[in-house]
């Protein structure tokens, strides 16, 4: 039986299963019951890696405090990090697209910092790494998001560039099941600072722990729970912290101890 036939057959077999009006109403009610400051608003732009969602705020006040730099895992608010601050950044050379968004790729993290006039945290663990994929997304007005894929490769290996997909395939390592990526969130304007910048980790995530790094950064660690029932599963960890007013997220499938060691090298 061909793939398309299987879909047709299943749809026929399950034809009585339809999204009924009462369920639709529950959804509508559920959506409107969500806090209005986190939905139904025009958000300039933000980043999402599937379930990990960054929400650039449009309304500031919730439950009596300013919604600055909050990280949520599903419905749990994580311990507060240090405050984000306005960062001065050179305007990128690329012209904005029709939505006013600028995307620019750089050869590596250092080249990106130089071009944008930024001084950001870095680690010796990323030295001599030709596999970084460094990209900026910004509206050049309120915010900028920098992502560096394969920021730290650890003991992963056999990197092969897949041109069509603009990414590297790699072999898993023992300590680093995957390379560790870096994301940096930069606030560029007073209004964005006032509006706040929340991050939601939705679905298969849980808050692992909060601690203070050697350098004194307050760090939240979040991990995925996708295959936690598997004995040898190395979950993806995300270490989120703010330094110099910039929010950094290191993400990769490594142990919590390895992730903490990495954070300690970020200078």
């Amino acid at each position, binding site marked *: 039986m061909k793939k398309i036939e299987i879909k047709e057959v299943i749809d026929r077999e*399950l034809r009585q299963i339809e*999204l009924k009006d009462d369920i639709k109403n529950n959804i509508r009610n559920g959506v409107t019951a969500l806090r209005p400051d*986190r939905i139904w608003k025009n958000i300039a732009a933000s980043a999402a890696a599937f379930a990990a969602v960054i929400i650039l705020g449009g309304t500031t006040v919730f439950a009596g405090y300013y919604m600055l730099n909050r990280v949520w895992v599903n419905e749990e608010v994580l311990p507060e990090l240090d405050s984000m601050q306005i960062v001065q950044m050179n305007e990128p050379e690329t012209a904005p697209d029709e939505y006013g968004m600028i995307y620019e790729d750089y050869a590596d993290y250092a080249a990106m910092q130089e071009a944008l006039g930024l001084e950001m945290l870095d680690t010796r663990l990323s030295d001599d790494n030709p596999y970084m994929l460094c990209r900026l997304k910004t509206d050049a007005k309120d915010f900028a998001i920098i992502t560096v894929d394969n920021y730290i490769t650890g003991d992963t290996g056999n990197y092969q560039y897949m041109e069509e997909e603009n990414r590297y395939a790699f072999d898993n390592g023992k300590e680093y099941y995957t390379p560790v990526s870096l994301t940096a969130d930069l606030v560029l304007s007073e209004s964005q600072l006032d509006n706040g910048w929340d991050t939601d980790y939705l679905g*298969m995530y849980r808050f692992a722990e909060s601690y203070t790094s050697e350098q004194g950064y307050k760090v939240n660690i979040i991990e995925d*729970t996708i295959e936690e029932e598997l004995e040898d599963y190395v979950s993806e960890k995300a270490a989120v912290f703010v330094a110099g007013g910039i929010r950094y997220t290191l993400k990769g499938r490594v142990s919590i101890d390895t992730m903490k060691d990495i954070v300690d090298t970020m200078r």
Partner: protein
Amino acid sequence: MPAEQFLERLMDEYGNTVLRMCYLYLKDYQLAEDAVQETFIKAMKSYESFEHKSSEKTWLIRIAINCCKNIMRNRWFKIRQNNPEENAERTGNDSIDDFLEKDSISAAVMKLQANDRQIIVLHYYQELSVKEIAAVIGKTENTTRQRLNRARSKMRKILTEAGYEEN
């Protein structure tokens, strides 16, 4: 597009297939309804920041699969799955299962283990590519391909036993 209109379009376009997928995966109609409600609510909560790195469909399916997994991790779900008769008595809603013939494709899918079921539903019912499935389940493409092949073999065996001819 205003959010209300967007939600209506999302429900119209994907509502039935997401509900059916959740049913095939969870093997429980009521829980599938719970999962689909949670899926659309979470989707609306995060849509504004959806960056279109994946298709809208893949993004929504990823949320739905995560909702199903959350439900499956619940201790109550495990008890419920282990006592299907008791469950049917309690809920009084086994009508969905009644119309499913024993040798239907859907029944064959539901005979698979959860991981196999998941990947078969994503590939054959949601018609996702290996790359898209890998993104949904958070695995590498190689691992996903291997899993799909294994699941496909198991599915083929069940279908053969049910009298389907190999094509």
